Protein backbone atom coordinates (compact mmCIF):
# COMPACT_ATOMS: atom_id res chain seq x y z
CA UNK A 1 0.00 0.00 0.00
CA UNK A 2 1.37 3.40 -0.88
CA UNK A 3 1.81 5.91 1.96
CA UNK A 4 -0.94 8.50 2.39
CA UNK A 5 -0.72 11.86 0.67
CA UNK A 6 -1.58 15.25 2.15
CA UNK A 7 -4.88 15.17 0.28
CA UNK A 8 -5.73 11.75 1.74
CA UNK A 9 -5.10 12.90 5.31
CA UNK A 10 -7.17 16.05 4.90
CA UNK A 11 -9.92 14.61 2.66
CA UNK A 12 -12.60 14.46 5.36
CA UNK A 13 -12.24 18.13 6.42
CA UNK A 14 -14.39 20.71 4.59
CA UNK A 15 -12.07 23.56 5.68
CA UNK A 16 -8.33 22.96 5.92
CA UNK A 17 -5.95 25.57 7.35
CA UNK A 18 -2.28 25.60 6.37
CA UNK A 19 -0.26 27.35 9.04
CA UNK A 20 3.49 27.84 9.25
CA UNK A 21 5.73 28.39 12.23
CA UNK A 22 7.51 31.22 10.38
CA UNK A 23 7.90 32.69 6.92
CA UNK A 24 9.40 30.39 4.30
CA UNK A 25 8.50 27.15 6.04
CA UNK A 26 6.78 25.96 2.87
CA UNK A 27 3.08 26.68 3.47
CA UNK A 28 2.47 27.71 -0.10
CA UNK A 29 4.44 24.75 -1.45
CA UNK A 30 2.21 22.50 0.65
CA UNK A 31 -0.83 24.35 -0.70
CA UNK A 32 0.43 23.84 -4.26
CA UNK A 33 0.96 20.12 -3.61
CA UNK A 34 -2.54 19.78 -2.18
CA UNK A 35 -4.02 21.69 -5.11
CA UNK A 36 -2.21 19.42 -7.56
CA UNK A 37 -3.47 16.27 -5.84
CA UNK A 38 -7.04 17.56 -5.61
CA UNK A 39 -7.01 18.68 -9.25
CA UNK A 40 -5.96 15.19 -10.37
CA UNK A 41 -8.71 13.68 -8.20
CA UNK A 42 -11.20 16.00 -9.92
CA UNK A 43 -12.23 17.68 -6.67
CA UNK A 44 -13.62 21.23 -6.78
CA UNK A 45 -11.61 23.38 -4.39
CA UNK A 46 -11.99 26.85 -2.95
CA UNK A 47 -8.87 28.77 -1.97
CA UNK A 48 -8.24 31.76 0.21
CA UNK A 49 -5.27 33.21 2.05
CA UNK A 50 -5.08 35.22 5.24
CA UNK A 51 -1.97 36.83 3.77
CA UNK A 52 -0.97 36.87 0.14
CA UNK A 53 0.01 33.86 -1.95
CA UNK A 54 1.34 33.27 -5.40
CA UNK A 55 3.33 36.50 -5.52
CA UNK A 56 6.57 36.28 -7.47
CA UNK A 57 8.95 37.57 -4.82
CA UNK A 58 9.09 37.46 -1.04
CA UNK A 59 7.66 40.58 0.57
CA UNK A 60 10.65 41.09 2.88
CA UNK A 61 13.54 39.50 0.99
CA UNK A 62 13.14 40.24 -2.71
CA UNK A 63 15.77 37.63 -3.63
CA UNK A 64 13.43 34.81 -2.65
CA UNK A 65 11.27 33.51 -5.51
CA UNK A 66 7.90 32.26 -4.29
CA UNK A 67 5.81 29.33 -5.56
CA UNK A 68 2.92 29.97 -7.92
CA UNK A 69 -0.63 29.10 -6.97
CA UNK A 70 -2.05 27.20 -9.95
CA UNK A 71 -5.79 26.67 -10.08
CA UNK A 72 -7.85 24.72 -12.58
CA UNK A 73 -11.03 25.85 -14.30
CA UNK A 74 -14.01 25.50 -11.97
CA UNK A 75 -12.02 26.29 -8.82
CA UNK A 76 -13.36 28.92 -6.46
CA UNK A 77 -11.20 31.65 -5.03
CA UNK A 78 -11.53 34.47 -2.54
CA UNK A 79 -9.06 37.17 -3.51
CA UNK A 80 -9.00 40.88 -4.22
CA UNK A 81 -10.57 42.47 -7.28
CA UNK A 82 -7.24 43.81 -8.53
CA UNK A 83 -5.34 40.53 -8.13
CA UNK A 84 -8.09 38.59 -9.89
CA UNK A 85 -8.01 41.11 -12.72
CA UNK A 86 -4.23 41.01 -12.95
CA UNK A 87 -4.25 37.20 -13.33
CA UNK A 88 -5.97 37.49 -16.70
CA UNK A 89 -7.94 34.29 -15.94
CA UNK A 90 -11.58 34.55 -17.04
CA UNK A 91 -13.90 34.19 -14.07
CA UNK A 92 -17.47 34.45 -12.89
CA UNK A 93 -18.10 36.84 -10.00
CA UNK A 94 -20.11 35.03 -7.32
CA UNK A 95 -20.07 37.57 -4.49
CA UNK A 96 -18.54 40.83 -3.38
CA UNK A 97 -17.69 40.38 0.28
CA UNK A 98 -17.31 44.00 1.36
CA UNK A 99 -14.11 42.93 3.12
CA UNK A 100 -11.46 45.60 2.56
CA UNK A 101 -7.78 44.65 2.67
CA UNK A 102 -4.67 46.76 2.04
CA UNK A 103 -4.69 45.21 -1.45
CA UNK A 104 -8.33 45.89 -2.27
CA UNK A 105 -11.82 44.42 -1.73
CA UNK A 106 -12.17 40.64 -1.51
CA UNK A 107 -14.34 38.95 -4.12
CA UNK A 108 -15.48 35.35 -4.45
CA UNK A 109 -15.21 34.07 -7.99
CA UNK A 110 -15.35 30.84 -9.97
CA UNK A 111 -12.50 30.48 -12.46
CA UNK A 112 -13.50 29.76 -16.04
CA UNK A 113 -9.96 28.95 -17.09
CA UNK A 114 -6.81 27.54 -15.53
CA UNK A 115 -3.75 29.45 -14.51
CA UNK A 116 -1.63 31.01 -11.81
CA UNK A 117 -2.90 33.83 -9.66
CA UNK A 118 -2.20 35.74 -6.48
CA UNK A 119 -4.57 34.99 -3.64
CA UNK A 120 -5.22 37.53 -0.88
CA UNK A 121 -8.43 36.95 1.05
CA UNK A 122 -9.72 38.33 4.34
CA UNK A 123 -7.30 38.61 7.26
CA UNK A 124 -9.73 38.52 10.18
CA UNK A 125 -10.52 34.99 11.37
CA UNK A 126 -14.30 35.50 11.43
CA UNK A 127 -14.24 36.81 7.86
CA UNK A 128 -12.05 33.90 6.75
CA UNK A 129 -14.72 31.56 8.10
CA UNK A 130 -17.46 33.50 6.29
CA UNK A 131 -15.78 33.39 2.87
CA UNK A 132 -14.89 29.71 3.41
CA UNK A 133 -18.50 28.87 4.10
CA UNK A 134 -19.56 30.98 1.13
CA UNK A 135 -17.24 29.01 -1.17
CA UNK A 136 -18.62 25.72 0.21
CA UNK A 137 -22.15 26.94 -0.45
CA UNK A 138 -21.15 27.94 -4.01
CA UNK A 139 -20.08 24.35 -4.68
CA UNK A 140 -16.52 23.91 -3.41
CA UNK A 141 -16.03 20.39 -2.04
CA UNK A 142 -13.14 21.54 0.11
CA UNK A 143 -11.73 24.93 1.08
CA UNK A 144 -8.02 25.46 1.62
CA UNK A 145 -7.04 28.40 3.84
CA UNK A 146 -3.42 29.42 3.54
CA UNK A 147 -1.85 31.16 6.51
CA UNK A 148 0.74 33.91 6.52
CA UNK A 149 4.09 34.21 8.27
CA UNK A 150 3.50 32.66 11.73
CA UNK A 151 -0.16 33.63 12.13
CA UNK A 152 -2.21 30.89 13.78
CA UNK A 153 -5.72 32.36 14.01
CA UNK A 154 -6.93 30.51 10.88
CA UNK A 155 -6.21 27.17 12.59
CA UNK A 156 -8.79 27.89 15.30
CA UNK A 157 -11.61 25.32 15.27
CA UNK A 158 -13.89 28.36 14.95
CA UNK A 159 -12.41 28.80 11.46
CA UNK A 160 -11.08 25.48 10.12
CA UNK A 161 -11.85 21.79 10.65
CA UNK A 162 -8.29 20.55 10.20
CA UNK A 163 -4.73 21.85 10.27
CA UNK A 164 -1.63 21.16 8.23
CA UNK A 165 1.39 22.66 9.98
CA UNK A 166 4.55 23.71 8.15
CA UNK A 167 7.99 23.96 9.70
CA UNK A 168 11.49 24.24 8.35
CA UNK A 169 15.14 25.08 8.51
CA UNK A 170 14.35 28.79 8.66
CA UNK A 171 13.56 28.47 12.39
CA UNK A 172 17.23 28.03 13.34
CA UNK A 173 20.66 27.20 12.02
CA UNK A 174 20.70 24.38 14.57
CA UNK A 175 18.88 21.21 13.57
CA UNK A 176 18.18 20.37 17.22
CA UNK A 177 16.67 23.83 17.76
CA UNK A 178 14.38 23.45 14.72
CA UNK A 179 13.18 20.11 16.10
CA UNK A 180 12.74 21.48 19.64
CA UNK A 181 10.80 24.57 18.54
CA UNK A 182 8.60 22.52 16.23
CA UNK A 183 7.89 20.03 19.02
CA UNK A 184 6.85 22.92 21.29
CA UNK A 185 4.52 24.26 18.61
CA UNK A 186 2.95 20.82 18.23
CA UNK A 187 2.63 20.51 22.00
CA UNK A 188 0.79 23.85 21.99
CA UNK A 189 -1.56 22.82 19.18
CA UNK A 190 -2.24 19.55 21.00
CA UNK A 191 -2.95 21.10 24.41
CA UNK A 192 -5.24 18.72 26.28
CA UNK A 193 -8.97 19.27 26.29
CA UNK A 194 -10.83 20.18 29.47
CA UNK A 195 -10.71 17.13 31.69
CA UNK A 196 -13.02 17.03 34.70
CA UNK A 197 -15.70 14.90 36.27
CA UNK A 198 -18.65 14.94 33.84
CA UNK A 199 -20.97 16.97 36.05
CA UNK A 200 -18.27 19.59 36.72
CA UNK A 201 -17.29 19.73 33.05
CA UNK A 202 -20.88 20.42 32.03
CA UNK A 203 -21.08 23.29 34.52
CA UNK A 204 -17.76 24.77 33.35
CA UNK A 205 -18.81 24.56 29.71
CA UNK A 206 -22.08 26.29 30.51
CA UNK A 207 -20.14 29.08 32.23
CA UNK A 208 -17.84 29.36 29.18
CA UNK A 209 -20.79 29.54 26.80
CA UNK A 210 -22.14 32.51 28.74
CA UNK A 211 -18.83 34.38 28.98
CA UNK A 212 -18.27 37.59 27.07
CA UNK A 213 -15.18 37.81 24.86
CA UNK A 214 -12.24 39.08 26.89
CA UNK A 215 -13.76 38.19 30.27
CA UNK A 216 -12.47 35.73 32.86
CA UNK A 217 -13.77 33.63 35.74
CA UNK A 218 -12.19 32.06 38.80
CA UNK A 219 -14.03 28.77 39.43
CA UNK A 220 -14.04 26.40 42.39
CA UNK A 221 -13.19 22.67 42.24
CA UNK A 222 -16.77 21.50 41.75
CA UNK A 223 -17.67 24.58 39.65
CA UNK A 224 -20.44 25.57 42.07
CA UNK A 225 -18.76 28.83 43.02
CA UNK A 226 -17.18 31.34 40.71
CA UNK A 227 -16.35 35.04 40.47
CA UNK A 228 -15.37 37.30 37.61
CA UNK A 229 -11.87 38.61 37.05
CA UNK A 230 -11.61 42.41 36.80
CA UNK A 231 -11.68 43.76 33.24
CA UNK A 232 -8.45 43.19 31.29
CA UNK A 233 -6.92 41.42 34.32
CA UNK A 234 -5.41 38.57 32.26
CA UNK A 235 -3.76 41.04 29.87
CA UNK A 236 -2.21 43.30 32.46
CA UNK A 237 -2.09 41.86 35.99
CA UNK A 238 1.21 41.81 37.88
CA UNK A 239 2.16 38.75 39.98
CA UNK A 240 1.29 40.49 43.29
CA UNK A 241 -2.20 41.38 42.07
CA UNK A 242 -2.74 37.83 40.82
CA UNK A 243 -1.60 36.40 44.14
CA UNK A 244 -3.89 38.57 46.25
CA UNK A 245 -6.88 38.06 43.96
CA UNK A 246 -6.54 34.26 44.03
CA UNK A 247 -6.20 34.28 47.84
CA UNK A 248 -9.39 36.31 48.28
CA UNK A 249 -11.59 33.23 47.97
CA UNK A 250 -11.18 29.65 49.09
CA UNK A 251 -9.65 27.08 46.74
CA UNK A 252 -9.75 28.44 43.21
CA UNK A 253 -9.28 25.45 40.91
CA UNK A 254 -10.11 26.64 37.38
CA UNK A 255 -9.35 29.91 35.63
CA UNK A 256 -11.56 30.41 32.63
CA UNK A 257 -9.99 32.89 30.17
CA UNK A 258 -12.41 33.89 27.41
CA UNK A 259 -9.77 35.66 25.35
CA UNK A 260 -6.03 35.85 24.94
CA UNK A 261 -3.75 34.14 27.47
CA UNK A 262 -0.42 36.00 27.41
CA UNK A 263 2.74 34.50 28.82
CA UNK A 264 3.09 37.25 31.43
CA UNK A 265 -0.13 36.06 33.10
CA UNK A 266 1.00 32.43 33.23
CA UNK A 267 4.37 33.53 34.60
CA UNK A 268 2.49 35.67 37.11
CA UNK A 269 0.69 32.59 38.45
CA UNK A 270 3.96 30.84 39.31
CA UNK A 271 4.75 32.86 42.49
CA UNK A 272 1.20 32.14 43.78
CA UNK A 273 1.76 28.43 43.18
CA UNK A 274 5.21 28.49 44.77
CA UNK A 275 3.68 29.98 47.90
CA UNK A 276 1.38 27.02 48.30
CA UNK A 277 -1.50 27.97 46.04
CA UNK A 278 -3.04 25.69 43.46
CA UNK A 279 -2.85 23.53 41.54
CA UNK A 280 -4.67 25.47 38.84
CA UNK A 281 -5.99 24.73 35.40
CA UNK A 282 -6.29 27.62 32.98
CA UNK A 283 -9.02 27.05 30.41
CA UNK A 284 -8.97 28.73 27.01
CA UNK A 285 -11.26 28.34 24.03
CA UNK A 286 -8.59 26.75 21.83
CA UNK A 287 -4.79 26.72 21.42
CA UNK A 288 -4.72 29.85 19.23
CA UNK A 289 -5.58 31.88 22.36
CA UNK A 290 -2.32 30.92 24.10
CA UNK A 291 0.75 33.14 23.66
CA UNK A 292 3.84 31.47 25.08
CA UNK A 293 7.33 31.66 23.67
CA UNK A 294 9.69 32.00 26.67
CA UNK A 295 8.63 28.74 28.33
CA UNK A 296 6.62 25.80 27.05
CA UNK A 297 3.40 24.29 28.36
CA UNK A 298 5.40 21.54 30.10
CA UNK A 299 7.23 24.11 32.22
CA UNK A 300 4.00 25.63 33.46
CA UNK A 301 2.50 22.18 34.10
CA UNK A 302 5.49 21.31 36.31
CA UNK A 303 5.02 24.62 38.14
CA UNK A 304 1.45 23.56 38.94
CA UNK A 305 -0.60 25.28 36.25
CA UNK A 306 -1.89 23.23 33.37
CA UNK A 307 -3.48 24.72 30.28
CA UNK A 308 -6.54 23.02 28.81
CA UNK A 309 -8.84 23.92 25.95
CA UNK A 310 -12.57 23.77 25.38
CA UNK A 311 -12.14 22.92 21.69
CA UNK A 312 -9.37 21.03 19.95
CA UNK A 313 -7.41 21.67 16.79
CA UNK A 314 -7.37 18.64 14.50
CA UNK A 315 -3.72 18.50 13.39
CA UNK A 316 -3.64 16.13 10.41
CA UNK A 317 -0.13 16.43 9.01
CA UNK A 318 3.11 18.39 9.03
CA UNK A 319 5.22 19.53 6.10
CA UNK A 320 8.88 20.44 6.36
CA UNK A 321 11.09 22.66 4.27
CA UNK A 322 14.69 21.57 4.93
CA UNK A 323 15.99 24.69 3.15
CA UNK A 324 16.34 28.15 4.70
CA UNK A 325 16.48 30.41 1.65
CA UNK A 326 19.64 32.50 1.27
CA UNK A 327 21.06 30.66 4.28
CA UNK A 328 21.44 27.01 5.26
CA UNK A 329 19.78 23.64 4.72
CA UNK A 330 19.44 20.26 6.42
CA UNK A 331 19.08 16.72 5.13
CA UNK A 332 15.36 16.26 4.53
CA UNK A 333 15.16 12.63 5.68
CA UNK A 334 17.15 13.31 8.83
CA UNK A 335 15.01 16.33 9.73
CA UNK A 336 11.82 14.34 9.20
CA UNK A 337 13.13 11.41 11.25
CA UNK A 338 14.11 13.64 14.18
CA UNK A 339 10.78 15.45 14.06
CA UNK A 340 8.90 12.14 13.97
CA UNK A 341 10.77 11.08 17.11
CA UNK A 342 10.06 14.38 18.85
CA UNK A 343 6.36 14.78 18.08
CA UNK A 344 5.12 11.22 17.57
CA UNK A 345 1.94 10.05 15.87
CA UNK A 346 1.92 12.56 13.01
CA UNK A 347 2.53 12.17 9.29
CA UNK A 348 5.46 14.37 8.26
CA UNK A 349 6.12 15.21 4.61
CA UNK A 350 8.65 17.08 2.53
CA UNK A 351 6.41 17.67 -0.48
CA UNK A 352 9.43 18.70 -2.60
CA UNK A 353 11.35 15.49 -1.83
CA UNK A 354 11.43 12.78 -4.53
CA UNK A 355 9.98 10.30 -2.01
CA UNK A 356 6.80 12.39 -1.88
CA UNK A 357 6.59 13.63 -5.45
CA UNK A 358 7.01 10.04 -6.72
CA UNK A 359 4.21 8.82 -4.43
CA UNK A 360 2.02 11.71 -5.55
CA UNK A 361 2.79 10.89 -9.17
CA UNK A 362 4.33 14.29 -9.77
CA UNK A 363 7.47 15.49 -11.40
CA UNK A 364 9.84 17.33 -9.09
CA UNK A 365 8.53 20.86 -8.53
CA UNK A 366 10.67 23.90 -9.17
CA UNK A 367 13.16 25.00 -6.55
CA UNK A 368 11.15 27.59 -4.71
CA UNK A 369 9.93 28.10 -1.19
CA UNK A 370 6.85 29.59 0.37
Amino acid at each position, binding site marked *: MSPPLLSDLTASAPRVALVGLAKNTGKTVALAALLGELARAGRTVGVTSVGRDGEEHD*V*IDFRIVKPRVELTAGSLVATTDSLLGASGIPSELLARTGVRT*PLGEVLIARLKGSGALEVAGP*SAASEVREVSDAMLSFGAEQVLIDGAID*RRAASSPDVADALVMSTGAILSESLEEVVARTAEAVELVRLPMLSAEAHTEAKIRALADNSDP*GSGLVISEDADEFFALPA*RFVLTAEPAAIDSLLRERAAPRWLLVAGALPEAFLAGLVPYLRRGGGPLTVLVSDPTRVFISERNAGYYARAGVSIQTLKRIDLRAMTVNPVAPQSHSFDSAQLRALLAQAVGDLEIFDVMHPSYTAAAGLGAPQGVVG
Partner: protein
Amino acid sequence: MPHREVDLSAVGPYADHLGDGLVQMSFTLPVPYSLAARRAALELAGAIGFQEPEVVHYEELTAGYTYFVMYGRATSTVDFTALAQEGFDIEYMSEDEVERFAEAHLGRKVVVVGASTGSDTHSVGIDAMLNLKGYHGHHGLEGYPCFQTYNLGSQVPNSVLLAKAIEVGADAILVSQTVTQQNLHVQNLTELVEMVEAEGRRRDMILVCGGPRVTNELAKELGYDAGFSKGTYPHHLATFIVRELAARVSAPS
Protein backbone atom coordinates in the same frame (compact mmCIF):
# COMPACT_ATOMS: atom_id res chain seq x y z
CA MET B 1 8.40 67.93 -20.63
CA PRO B 2 8.88 64.68 -22.60
CA HIS B 3 6.09 63.05 -20.60
CA ARG B 4 4.20 61.48 -23.47
CA GLU B 5 7.20 59.51 -24.71
CA VAL B 6 7.42 57.44 -21.54
CA ASP B 7 6.91 53.72 -22.08
CA LEU B 8 5.28 52.77 -18.80
CA SER B 9 5.77 49.07 -19.46
CA ALA B 10 9.57 49.52 -19.33
CA VAL B 11 10.44 52.27 -16.89
CA GLY B 12 14.01 52.99 -15.91
CA PRO B 13 15.90 55.83 -14.27
CA TYR B 14 16.91 58.85 -16.28
CA ALA B 15 19.01 61.97 -15.77
CA ASP B 16 19.65 63.81 -19.04
CA HIS B 17 17.33 62.07 -21.47
CA LEU B 18 14.70 59.34 -21.25
CA GLY B 19 16.14 55.86 -21.25
CA ASP B 20 19.69 56.80 -20.31
CA GLY B 21 19.39 54.72 -17.13
CA LEU B 22 21.61 57.11 -15.22
CA VAL B 23 21.79 56.56 -11.44
CA GLN B 24 23.66 58.61 -8.88
CA MET B 25 24.67 56.72 -5.78
CA SER B 26 26.78 57.19 -2.73
CA PHE B 27 28.30 54.68 -0.35
CA THR B 28 31.24 54.00 1.92
CA LEU B 29 33.77 51.20 1.66
CA PRO B 30 35.78 50.08 4.70
CA VAL B 31 39.12 50.54 2.88
CA PRO B 32 41.79 53.27 3.11
CA TYR B 33 41.45 56.30 0.80
CA SER B 34 43.57 55.36 -2.23
CA LEU B 35 43.54 54.67 -5.96
CA ALA B 36 42.90 51.02 -5.08
CA ALA B 37 39.80 52.13 -3.16
CA ARG B 38 38.55 53.99 -6.23
CA ARG B 39 39.17 50.87 -8.32
CA ALA B 40 37.25 48.77 -5.76
CA ALA B 41 34.24 51.11 -5.99
CA LEU B 42 34.23 50.85 -9.80
CA GLU B 43 34.44 47.07 -9.68
CA LEU B 44 31.69 46.87 -7.10
CA ALA B 45 29.37 49.03 -9.20
CA GLY B 46 30.11 46.81 -12.19
CA ALA B 47 29.40 43.71 -10.13
CA ILE B 48 26.05 45.17 -9.02
CA GLY B 49 25.23 45.53 -12.71
CA PHE B 50 25.82 49.19 -13.50
CA GLN B 51 27.28 49.93 -16.89
CA GLU B 52 29.87 52.64 -17.44
CA PRO B 53 30.38 53.22 -13.71
CA GLU B 54 32.12 56.49 -12.94
CA VAL B 55 33.47 57.84 -9.66
CA VAL B 56 32.68 61.56 -9.60
CA HIS B 57 33.82 62.17 -6.04
CA TYR B 58 35.62 60.28 -3.34
CA GLU B 59 37.16 61.26 -0.06
CA GLU B 60 38.52 59.86 3.16
CA LEU B 61 35.68 59.54 5.69
CA THR B 62 37.96 58.59 8.53
CA ALA B 63 41.12 56.50 8.70
CA GLY B 64 40.48 53.26 6.83
CA TYR B 65 37.17 54.34 5.25
CA THR B 66 36.47 55.96 1.89
CA TYR B 67 33.25 57.66 0.80
CA PHE B 68 32.20 57.62 -2.87
CA VAL B 69 29.74 59.42 -5.11
CA MET B 70 29.26 57.56 -8.38
CA TYR B 71 27.24 57.47 -11.56
CA GLY B 72 26.32 54.34 -13.43
CA ARG B 73 23.84 53.26 -16.06
CA ALA B 74 21.11 50.84 -15.01
CA THR B 75 19.95 48.57 -17.80
CA SER B 76 17.01 46.95 -16.00
CA THR B 77 13.47 48.29 -16.28
CA VAL B 78 10.19 47.61 -14.52
CA ASP B 79 6.66 47.27 -15.87
CA PHE B 80 4.86 50.14 -14.16
CA THR B 81 1.54 49.33 -15.84
CA ALA B 82 1.38 46.02 -13.95
CA LEU B 83 2.31 47.61 -10.64
CA ALA B 84 -0.18 50.45 -10.94
CA GLN B 85 -3.02 47.90 -10.90
CA GLU B 86 -1.94 46.58 -7.52
CA GLY B 87 -3.59 47.75 -4.36
CA PHE B 88 -5.60 50.89 -4.17
CA ASP B 89 -4.31 54.41 -4.37
CA ILE B 90 -6.20 56.64 -2.04
CA GLU B 91 -6.34 60.37 -2.38
CA TYR B 92 -5.20 61.93 0.82
CA MET B 93 -7.16 64.65 2.52
CA SER B 94 -5.67 67.72 4.13
CA GLU B 95 -5.98 68.24 7.85
CA ASP B 96 -9.04 70.46 7.40
CA GLU B 97 -10.66 67.97 5.05
CA VAL B 98 -10.07 65.14 7.53
CA GLU B 99 -11.72 67.26 10.20
CA ARG B 100 -14.78 68.02 8.06
CA PHE B 101 -15.03 64.39 6.91
CA ALA B 102 -14.93 63.10 10.50
CA GLU B 103 -17.60 65.57 11.54
CA ALA B 104 -19.87 64.66 8.63
CA HIS B 105 -19.45 60.87 8.70
CA LEU B 106 -18.53 60.00 12.28
CA GLY B 107 -19.68 62.84 14.52
CA ARG B 108 -17.47 61.80 17.42
CA LYS B 109 -13.83 61.62 18.41
CA VAL B 110 -11.74 58.90 16.82
CA VAL B 111 -9.65 57.10 19.44
CA VAL B 112 -6.17 55.96 18.42
CA VAL B 113 -3.68 54.10 20.61
CA GLY B 114 -0.09 53.88 19.41
CA ALA B 115 3.14 52.27 20.55
CA SER B 116 6.40 50.78 19.42
CA THR B 117 5.91 47.17 20.39
CA GLY B 118 8.11 44.49 21.83
CA SER B 119 11.81 45.11 21.87
CA ASP B 120 11.76 48.01 19.44
CA THR B 121 13.16 51.14 21.03
CA HIS B 122 12.48 53.33 18.01
CA SER B 123 9.48 55.43 18.90
CA VAL B 124 10.33 58.13 16.38
CA GLY B 125 7.71 56.98 13.85
CA ILE B 126 4.94 56.83 16.44
CA ASP B 127 5.89 60.22 17.87
CA ALA B 128 5.85 61.79 14.41
CA MET B 129 2.40 60.36 13.67
CA LEU B 130 0.73 60.99 17.02
CA ASN B 131 2.40 63.86 18.87
CA LEU B 132 1.34 67.45 18.43
CA LYS B 133 4.79 68.39 17.19
CA GLY B 134 4.62 65.92 14.28
CA TYR B 135 7.33 66.48 11.70
CA HIS B 136 8.16 68.51 8.61
CA GLY B 137 5.52 71.03 9.66
CA HIS B 138 2.68 68.48 9.70
CA HIS B 139 1.45 68.06 13.21
CA GLY B 140 0.47 64.67 14.50
CA LEU B 141 -3.01 63.32 15.22
CA GLU B 142 -2.89 64.76 18.74
CA GLY B 143 -3.29 68.17 17.10
CA TYR B 144 -6.51 67.19 15.28
CA PRO B 145 -9.69 68.06 17.21
CA CYS B 146 -11.37 64.92 15.84
CA PHE B 147 -8.74 62.54 17.25
CA GLN B 148 -8.18 61.39 20.80
CA THR B 149 -4.71 59.86 20.95
CA TYR B 150 -2.76 57.77 23.44
CA ASN B 151 0.95 57.33 22.79
CA LEU B 152 2.25 54.54 25.02
CA GLY B 153 5.87 54.99 23.92
CA SER B 154 8.37 52.26 23.19
CA GLN B 155 8.96 48.66 24.25
CA VAL B 156 5.31 48.10 25.10
CA PRO B 157 4.23 44.44 25.42
CA ASN B 158 1.42 43.56 23.03
CA SER B 159 -0.86 42.49 25.88
CA VAL B 160 -0.47 45.89 27.58
CA LEU B 161 -1.06 47.77 24.32
CA LEU B 162 -4.18 45.72 23.64
CA ALA B 163 -5.50 46.19 27.19
CA LYS B 164 -5.13 49.97 26.85
CA ALA B 165 -6.88 49.91 23.49
CA ILE B 166 -9.80 47.98 24.99
CA GLU B 167 -9.90 50.23 28.05
CA VAL B 168 -10.22 53.45 26.04
CA GLY B 169 -12.41 51.94 23.32
CA ALA B 170 -9.83 52.47 20.60
CA ASP B 171 -10.99 52.65 17.01
CA ALA B 172 -7.46 52.07 15.78
CA ILE B 173 -4.16 50.71 17.04
CA LEU B 174 -1.00 52.06 15.47
CA VAL B 175 2.25 50.18 15.99
CA SER B 176 5.67 50.83 14.64
CA GLN B 177 8.34 48.25 14.32
CA THR B 178 11.61 48.06 12.46
CA VAL B 179 11.38 45.14 10.05
CA THR B 180 14.72 43.71 9.03
CA GLN B 181 15.56 41.39 6.17
CA GLN B 182 16.02 38.63 8.75
CA ASN B 183 12.45 39.49 9.82
CA LEU B 184 13.45 39.21 13.47
CA HIS B 185 10.78 41.66 14.50
CA VAL B 186 7.89 40.39 12.45
CA GLN B 187 6.77 38.07 15.26
CA ASN B 188 5.90 41.05 17.45
CA LEU B 189 3.65 42.44 14.74
CA THR B 190 1.88 39.15 14.04
CA GLU B 191 1.49 38.44 17.76
CA LEU B 192 -0.48 41.66 18.24
CA VAL B 193 -2.88 40.72 15.45
CA GLU B 194 -3.29 37.22 16.88
CA MET B 195 -3.92 38.61 20.34
CA VAL B 196 -6.58 41.00 19.06
CA GLU B 197 -8.18 37.97 17.35
CA ALA B 198 -7.96 35.91 20.55
CA GLU B 199 -9.73 38.68 22.47
CA GLY B 200 -12.48 38.69 19.84
CA ARG B 201 -11.80 42.32 18.93
CA ARG B 202 -10.42 42.06 15.40
CA ARG B 203 -13.45 43.52 13.67
CA ASP B 204 -13.78 46.35 16.20
CA MET B 205 -10.31 47.76 15.66
CA ILE B 206 -8.42 49.15 12.71
CA LEU B 207 -4.85 47.86 12.88
CA VAL B 208 -2.12 49.91 11.26
CA CYS B 209 1.59 49.18 11.25
CA GLY B 210 4.39 51.48 10.29
CA GLY B 211 8.11 51.22 9.84
CA PRO B 212 10.89 51.84 7.38
CA ARG B 213 10.20 48.67 5.33
CA VAL B 214 6.47 48.30 5.84
CA THR B 215 4.45 48.19 2.62
CA ASN B 216 0.77 47.43 2.04
CA GLU B 217 1.84 43.99 0.80
CA LEU B 218 3.69 43.29 4.05
CA ALA B 219 0.79 44.70 6.07
CA LYS B 220 -1.54 42.24 4.34
CA GLU B 221 0.71 39.29 5.22
CA LEU B 222 1.01 40.49 8.79
CA GLY B 223 -2.77 40.79 9.09
CA TYR B 224 -3.00 44.59 9.37
CA ASP B 225 -5.48 46.86 7.65
CA ALA B 226 -2.80 49.19 6.33
CA GLY B 227 0.93 49.71 6.38
CA PHE B 228 2.81 52.98 6.28
CA SER B 229 6.44 53.60 5.55
CA LYS B 230 8.86 56.43 4.89
CA GLY B 231 7.16 59.41 3.31
CA THR B 232 3.97 58.98 5.31
CA TYR B 233 2.68 62.13 6.98
CA PRO B 234 0.12 62.23 9.79
CA HIS B 235 -2.61 63.44 7.44
CA HIS B 236 -2.10 60.30 5.29
CA LEU B 237 -2.69 58.14 8.35
CA ALA B 238 -5.62 60.33 9.44
CA THR B 239 -7.22 60.03 6.00
CA PHE B 240 -6.99 56.25 6.06
CA ILE B 241 -8.39 55.91 9.57
CA VAL B 242 -11.41 58.20 9.15
CA ARG B 243 -12.28 56.75 5.73
CA GLU B 244 -11.96 53.15 6.93
CA LEU B 245 -13.98 53.88 10.06
CA ALA B 246 -16.71 55.57 8.03
CA ALA B 247 -16.81 52.56 5.68
CA ARG B 248 -17.19 50.20 8.66
CA VAL B 249 -19.91 52.35 10.22
CA SER B 250 -21.92 52.49 7.00
CA ALA B 251 -21.54 48.77 6.17
CA PRO B 252 -21.22 46.82 9.40
CA SER B 253 -20.02 43.35 8.47
